[in-house]
C-alpha cells in the first residue's frame, strides 16, 4: 500500500488528473457516475501514476452551470452519493498515495442556495446582506460583462426583493458580498468542513471577482488579495500541507499577484493556472514555430519559491481567445487569428485527440510538452486513451461523455439501460468505445495509455521537471523547441520538433561539454557533447527527453572490463 509522501511542497511535483464524477463510473446503475464508482477506479488512477485528483463541483446544484452553481457548500449532490461516499473516495485515495483537491466556488452561489432565498425574502434577516443588492443598476459600471453572449448586464432585477442583485457570471449566480464579515466567516466555515474531512486542497473558481469597487473593473482588487491571504493564513495554521489552486483567468503578469509575497515564498495561493500555455502550444505546432511558446515562457514572471503553475492541454471548459486579457488577445489575434482554421481550433469545445486529427505523433508531442514544461500538469480524464468528443451535445457536454472502460455495454461505464445514461457514450467509428477504451489500451503495450504512463513515470523519477529551472536553448532551427530543466544536478534536455517534417537542429550545449546524453524512453546513450554545436535530427512531430548525466572522459567510458 502506497503512502502519501510527507512533503509540504508535494504539489510542485504532482501529476494532477481532472475527473468528472458524473462521467467516470456509475456504481449504482442509475446512469450517472458516482463517488462509489470513482472509488472503484482508483486502482486504475494509481496504476497510471496520478498523484492528485481534481474533482469539479459535486455539491447539490440545479446544474445550470455544470455544478459551479452551488446550492449547498457542505453536502454532496444526491445523484452522485453521500458525504460518507466522499469520505470513501478520500480515504481510499489516500491509502493509494493519491491526494484529492476539490473545486470551490467562492464568488457566487446558485440562486437556489438557501442563503439567496433568505436574502431576497428577508432583507433585514441574517442573510439580508449576503449578496450585493442595489436599488439601481448603474453601480460598478466599470466591470465588464464576462458572458457577453447570454448576459446583458451584471445587474439583474429581483421581483421578490424589488432590488437589483450583482452577478459577474450568469444571472442565476448572484455574487456573494465579501464586504460582509458574516460571508467571509461562512466561507471559512465551508472550507473547514471539507478540510476536516481530509481533502488536500481547493481549486478556487473565479477568484479575481470577489469584491466590487466603484471606479474599477472589479478584478484583482486589493481587498480580494487581502481575503485570499487571510484564507491562506487560516489554512496554513490549521491544516498545513493543504493547497490552494487559483483559477485566475488572467495574463501571467497579473496572475502572479495571486501567489502573493515573493520574500516569504508566497502567502496567497500555492498554485495558479497558467492559461496562455495551452493555446500557445497549439499555435506553435500549427505554425511549426517555437516562438509562440518561447515568447510566453519569456514573458512569464518568476513566481515565489513555494509556488507552482498548473498547466493543461484540455479540461472541462472551453477555452477561447476571449478568456485572456485584452493585451494578449490583441497580440494573439494580430499574430495568429488571421488564420480562420486557427480560430476554429482555438474556440475549443473539443478533446485533445479530435483536435489533433487523432494523430498519435502529435498527441504524444503535446503530452510530452505538457509533462516537461514548467508547472504541474493537469490531465483531463479520457485524454490518456485518446477519447473523442460529441460535438452534437449542447454547451460543454461534448467533452464530458462517459469514460470508456471496456468494449462492453455503455463502455463499461454503467450497467444501466443505454437510454438512461445522463450523457451518451461516444459511438462513432474512430473514437467509439469499441475501439477506444481502457481495457484495449491496457492490453496493447504500444498504446497511448501505456506510453502516457511511461512518460509520467519518467517525469516522476526526475525532480528537474517539477522543481527545476527552465532554460530555453534557442537553436538553429525555428521549428524545434529545446530547453533544459535543471534541479540540483538533475539535468533534463527536452527537444521538440513542432513541425510535421523531419528536422535537424544544432544546439549550443557548451555548458555541458563532456556530458553523455541518455535518451529517457529507451535509455539509449547518445554521442557525448563536444566542443561543436550538438547535432540532432528529429522525425516529424518527434521529441526527445535526454538526461544529461555525468561528465565523462575517455577513461570512464565503457564497462569496467573494457578499461585498462
Amino acid at each position, binding site marked *: 500500500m502506497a503512502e502519501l509522501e510527507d512533503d509540504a511542497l508535494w504539489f510542485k511535483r504532482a501529476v494532477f488528473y481532472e475527473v468528472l464524477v458524473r462521467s467516470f463510473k456509475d456504481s449504482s446503475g442509475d446512469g450517472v457516475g458516482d463517488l462509489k464508482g470513482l472509488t472503484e477506479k482508483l486502482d486504475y488512477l494509481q496504476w497510471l501514476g496520478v498523484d492528485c485528483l481534481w474533482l469539479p463541483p459535486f455539491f447539490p446544484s440545479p446544474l445550470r452551470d455544470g455544478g459551479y452553481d452551488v446550492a449547498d457548500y457542505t453536502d454532496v449532490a444526491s445523484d452522485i452519493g453521500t458525504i460518507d461516499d466522499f469520505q470513501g473516495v478520500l480515504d481510499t485515495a489516500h491509502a493509494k498515495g493519491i491526494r484529492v483537491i476539490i473545486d470551490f466556488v467562492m464568488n457566487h452561489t446558485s440562486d437556489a442556495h438557501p442563503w439567496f432565498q433568505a436574502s431576497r425574502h428577508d432583507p433585514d434577516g441574517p442573510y439580508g446582506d449576503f449578496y450585493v443588492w442595489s436599488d439601481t443598476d448603474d453601480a460598478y459600471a466599470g466591470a465588464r460583462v464576462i458572458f457577453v453572449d447570454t448576459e446583458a448586464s451584471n445587474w439583474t432585477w429581483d421581483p421578490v426583493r424589488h432590488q437589483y442583485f450583482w452577478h459577474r457570471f450568469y444571472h442565476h449566480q448572484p455574487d456573494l458580498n465579501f464586504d460582509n464579515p458574516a460571508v467571509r466567516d461562512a466561507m471559512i466555515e465551508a472550507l473547514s468542513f471539507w478540510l476536516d474531512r481530509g481533502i488536500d486542497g481547493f481549486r478556487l473558481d473565479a477568484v479575481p471577482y470577489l469584491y466590487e469597487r466603484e471606479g474599477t473593473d472589479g478584478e484583482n482588487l486589493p481587498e480580494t488579495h487581502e481575503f485570499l491571504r487571510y484564507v491562506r493564513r487560516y489554512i496554513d495554521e490549521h491544516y498545513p500541507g493543504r493547497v490552494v489552486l487559483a483559477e485566475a483567468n488572467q495574463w501571467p503578469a497579473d496572475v502572479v499577484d495571486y501567489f502573493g509575497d515573493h520574500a516569504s515564498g508566497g502567502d496567497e495561493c500555492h498554485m495558479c493556472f497558467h492559461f496562455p500555455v495551452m493555446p500557445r502550444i497549439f499555435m506553435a505546432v*500549427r*505554425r*511549426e*514555430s517555437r*516562438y509562440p511558446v*518561447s*515568447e510566453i*515562457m*519569456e514573458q512569464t514572471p518568476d513566481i515565489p519559491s513555494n509556488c507552482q503553475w498548473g498547466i493543461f492541454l484540455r479540461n472541462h471548459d472551453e477555452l477561447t481567445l476571449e478568456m485572456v486579457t485584452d493585451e494578449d488577445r490583441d497580440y494573439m489575434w*494580430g*499574430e*495568429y487569428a*488571421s*488564420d*480562420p*482554421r*486557427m480560430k476554429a481550433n482555438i474556440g475549443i469545445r473539443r478533446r485533445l485527440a479530435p483536435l489533433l486529427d487523432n494523430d498519435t505523433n502529435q498527441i504524444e508531442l503535446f503530452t510530452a510538452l505538457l509533462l516537461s514544461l514548467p508547472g504541474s500538469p493537469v490531465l483531463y480524464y479520457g485524454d490518456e486513451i485518446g477519447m473523442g468528443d460529441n460535438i452534437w451535445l449542447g454547451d460543454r457536454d461534448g467533452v464530458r461523455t462517459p469514460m470508456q472502460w471496456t468494449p462492453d455495454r455503455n463502455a463499461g461505464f454503467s450497467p444501466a439501460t443505454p437510454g438512461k445514461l445522463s450523457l451518451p457514450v461516444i459511438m462513432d467509428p474512430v473514437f467509439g468505445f469499441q475501439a477506444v477504451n481502457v481495457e484495449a489500451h491496457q492490453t496493447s503495450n504500444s498504446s497511448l495509455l501505456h506510453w502516457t504512463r511511461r512518460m509520467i513515470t519518467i517525469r516522476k523519477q526526475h525532480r528537474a521537471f517539477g522543481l527545476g529551472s527552465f532554460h*530555453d*536553448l*534557442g*537553436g*538553429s*532551427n*525555428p*521549428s524545434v523547441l529545446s530547453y533544459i530543466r535543471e534541479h540540483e544536478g538533475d539535468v533534463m534536455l527536452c527537444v521538440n520538433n513542432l*513541425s*510535421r*517534417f523531419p528536422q535537424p537542429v544544432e544546439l*549550443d550545449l*557548451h*555548458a555541458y561539454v563532456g556530458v553523455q546524453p541518455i535518451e529517457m524512453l529507451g535509455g539509449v546513450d547518445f554521442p557525448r557533447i563536444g*566542443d*561543436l*554545436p550538438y547535432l540532432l535530427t528529429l522525425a516529424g512531430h518527434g521529441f526527445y527527453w535526454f538526461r544529461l548525466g555525468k561528465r565523462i572522459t575517455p577513461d570512464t567510458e565503457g564497462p569496467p572490463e573494457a578499461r585498462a
Partner: protein
Amino acid sequence: MTEPVQHPHMTDYLARQRWFGASVGRFTVSAVQPLSWLSDPLTGLGVRIELVTVTTANGRHVYNLPLAYRSEPVDSIGYGLVGMETWDEGDFYVYDAMHDPEARTVLMNGFFGPPKVADMVFHRTGIEIDIDADTPSVALSVDQSNTSIIVGETALLKWFRRVVPGRNPDVEVHQALSGPGSDSVAALFGWISTSNADGLPGYDLAMLQRFLRTATDGWESARTSVRDLLADPELAASEAGGDFAGDAERLGATTAHVHELMADSFPTEIWATEQLGALAERLRARLTAAAADAPMLAPLVPRIEECYDALARLDMAVHAQRVHGDLHLGQTLRTTAGWKIIDFEGEPAAPLAERTMLDTPARDLAGMLRSFDYAAHSVLLQTGADTLERAEEWVARNRAAFLSGYGFVPDEGATIVLSAYEIDKAVYEVVYELHHRPDWVTLPLRALERLVS
C-alpha cells in the same frame, strides 16, 4: 621580447580559414606588425595581436590575428595551430587565440580593470554587462568573414578578421543605435581598437555585444514558412499555419525603426534629380559590367535601362541617409523579444568609403525583398518542385506585409526607386550565381523578367 616574427607556416594556416580571402599560391605575407604583449610568453602563455599584411593580385589587405604563444603544445586545439616560432627564449607553439580558451580569457581581460598596454584601447559603453574577467567562452562555428566567441551566456565577442583604418561601420552603427529605447539591434558592450599614439592607423579590431541566445535567423524562419505552404497545395498562403506575414510585417516595422535611428544619428541628405541621375549612372555602369560577364542578361538590358532612365528622370526629392547596405533575411534575428537587425558592416568586399556612403533606405528594402524571393524559390530549387505559382504567392504576400510594416508608401516615384534597386541587386545575383551556382541563375533571371515587365 623583440624577436622578429617568422611565421613560416602562416600562409598555410591563413589559406585554410573561411574568413581569409585568397587561396594558396595567390598571396604572400608581406608584413607582420605585432602589438604589445597582453601576457608575457615567458609565463608559458603569451598573447598578442599581430596585424598581418597580405599582398594579392588585387592589392594589399590587413588581417587581424590574435595569437597565443605557448611553450608546450596543446593537443585539444591542434586545429588552431598556426606554426612554430624559434626564438632565443625557446620554442613556441603559436595558436590562433580564438581557438585557445585561456588566450581568449586574456583577451577579454582587457575589458576589465586599468589599461594594460599603450597601443590598444578596450572601450566600454555604459551598458551593463554580466560577465567578468574570468567568464569562460566558446567559439561559434557559423561565422563567414569574422570569428565570434560567446562569453558566458550573454556576450558575444566578434573578432574582425580583415581590417581597414578607420571606424568599423558595425561598431560605429551599434554605438550610435544601441542604448535605452532601442531594442532593434543587439546592445553594444564595448569594442577594441588600436591606439593612434605611435602613428599607427587606427583599426577597430573587435566588438563586444549582447549574445541573443534564443535567436534564429530570419532566413530559416522564412524557409520554414515556405515549406509549410508548399506541403499544403489546397491552402492559400493567407490560410497556411506557417504563415510568415505577421513576422514579415513586424520585420518591416523593425527595419523602419532602425532607419529612423540611423537618420537621427548620422548625416542625411536630400537627393533631387541630379543625385538620382548620378545614382542611375552608377547602376547603369554596374549593369554594363555585369552584362559583359553574363551574356544571358543581354536581352534584358534595354528594358532594365528604361527603368534606370525613369529613375534619372524623376522629378522628386528623396531622403538619403546611412543604411544597412547589405540587408537580407540572414542579417535578421528572430528573438523572443521581436526582430533584431545585425551586422552593419555593409558589403564586406567594398571599400570603407563606399560602405558608409549615404544612400536611400530603398536600398535596404530592395535587399530584403530580394531575400524573400530567394527564400521561396530556393526551396523549389533544392527540392526540385515545380510549383512556381505557390512560391510566387508566398513572395507576394510577404513582400506586401514587409512593406506595409515598414510604412512604405507606393507612389509612382518611390516605386521606381525601389524597383531600380531591386533590379540592380538581381543583376548582381545573376553574375554571382553564374560563377558560383550556375543551376540557380534562373532564380534572379526570372525575378528580373518580372521586375522589368
